[in-house]
């Protein structure tokens, strides 16, 4: 082809086809299908001869193109009998390319809109403690929100490997004390502050147990400023005589 093409520069076979069509300076209504098909197959062959993976979608499209090409070679009379109940695959491909092109353009235009975290930033107001203690009221909520809540939860705890937890009793105590240390001298901590970039499952579980203990012991409060918002830890005011550090015995983990 005389120029280098990398498949991973393309979103998929439709994207690659649009590229070839543009390269050949033709219009969608008059795609020189034989030529385009040959070019497309040539690229795939080059990729394969270089032992580069070609995603299945590209191969499926190759098969479609070959199918269309072979149909175009059939005598037209036979074609007509097929047209009754079958969509012309060439017509279908052109329609898909048109549609794809439309959304591709819309996506590019959407990308020019000011976006949060790129052009625009918001205030992150601190939450007022009182606001979030009320009981949840029942108001319209969709069934799918229910499922999404569960999905979010499972995303956070992907595998049910609860047997890993059992040997972590010392760590719960350590974790509690680490959390208290971190909380010292700050107004609040976000839940995500407690974890490294990629916490192990047992780390997460131990931290959650630690938070549970701390909440039970009324040492901290867990508050959320909005539904599904970030959860933050707030220290409760320590009254005289309350323990400020914890050992295993005081937690019943002996």
């Amino acid at each position, binding site marked *: 082809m005389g120029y*280098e*093409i990398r498949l991973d*520069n*393309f*979103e*998929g*076979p*439709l*994207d690659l086809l*649009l*590229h070839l*069509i*543009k390269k050949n*300076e033709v*219009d*969608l*209504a008059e795609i020189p299908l034989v030529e385009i098909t040959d070019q497309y197959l040539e690229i795939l062959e080059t990729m394969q001869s270089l032992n580069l993976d070609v*995603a299945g*979608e590209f191969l499926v*499209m190759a098969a479609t193109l070959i199918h269309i090409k072979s149909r175009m070679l059939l005598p037209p009379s036979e074609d007509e009998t097929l047209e009754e109940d079958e969509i012309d695959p060439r017509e279908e491909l*052109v*329609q*898909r390319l*048109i*549609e*794809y*092109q*439309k*959304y*591709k*353009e*819309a*996506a*590019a*235009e*959407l*990308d020019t*809109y*000011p*976006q*949060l*975290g*790129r*052009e*625009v*930033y*918001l*205030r*992150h*107001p601190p*939450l007022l403690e009182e606001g979030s203690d009320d009981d949840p009221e029942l108001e319209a909520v969709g069934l*799918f929100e229910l*499922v*999404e809540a569960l999905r*979010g939860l499972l*995303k956070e705890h992907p595998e049910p490997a609860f047997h890993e937890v059992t040997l972590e009793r010392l760590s719960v105590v350590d974790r509690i004390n680490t959390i208290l240390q971190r909380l010292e001298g700050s107004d609040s901590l976000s839940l995500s502050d407690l974890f490294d970039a990629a916490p192990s499952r047992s780390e997460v579980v131990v931290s959650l147990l630690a938070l549970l203990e701390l909440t039970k012991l009324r040492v901290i409060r867990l508050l959320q*400023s*909005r539904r*599904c*918002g970030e959860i933050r830890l707030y220290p409760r005011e320590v009254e005289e005589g309350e323990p400020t550090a914890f050992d295993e015995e005081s937690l019943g983990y002996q």
Partner: protein
Amino acid sequence: MDTSELKQQVEGLLFAADEPVTLERLSEVLEVDKREIEPLLWELADDYRNQKRGFSLEKVAQGVQLRSLPEHAEAIRRLQGARPFRFSRAALETLAIIAYRQPVTRAEIEYLRGVDSGGVLKTLLDKRLLRILGKKDLPGRPLLYGTSRGFLEFFGLENLSELPSLREFSDVQGETIFLDGMGPHDAP
């Protein structure tokens, strides 16, 4: 409460809100008629512009919200030590398809894009830019996807009608279609 006090309070609420606030909500919270509050919002928006304040009042997702100015984005990023957020092309294409065609199934998206879109859908759901609208009345009852309020907030849109209009190609015959305006991947 006199007008200047009310205006101050409206600003205080906008300042403390963590999501776009509707006029109704402001009226409810302040127990003041909407018609009294609305002009104050536009006064505030004008104040910010005329006095060259460091933020603006924008209409977003059927409400109003204080937002930083685009020309400060870089300095804000330096302050926060953050990188600019960038969507992948796959994510943008998928979002665009869903935004224009909702409710839409995963199969429809994949047919249009020509590639598996499960991973992208998951990412967009996790970022709360999408939501599940229900199930399609088809064998297998596939889920129907749509954009969420978060989508509007993310792109600073008041509602979906503010999306860029799709270029319509009524029929193929005789149309010169996409020789211009191709995406960024044309170069070898």
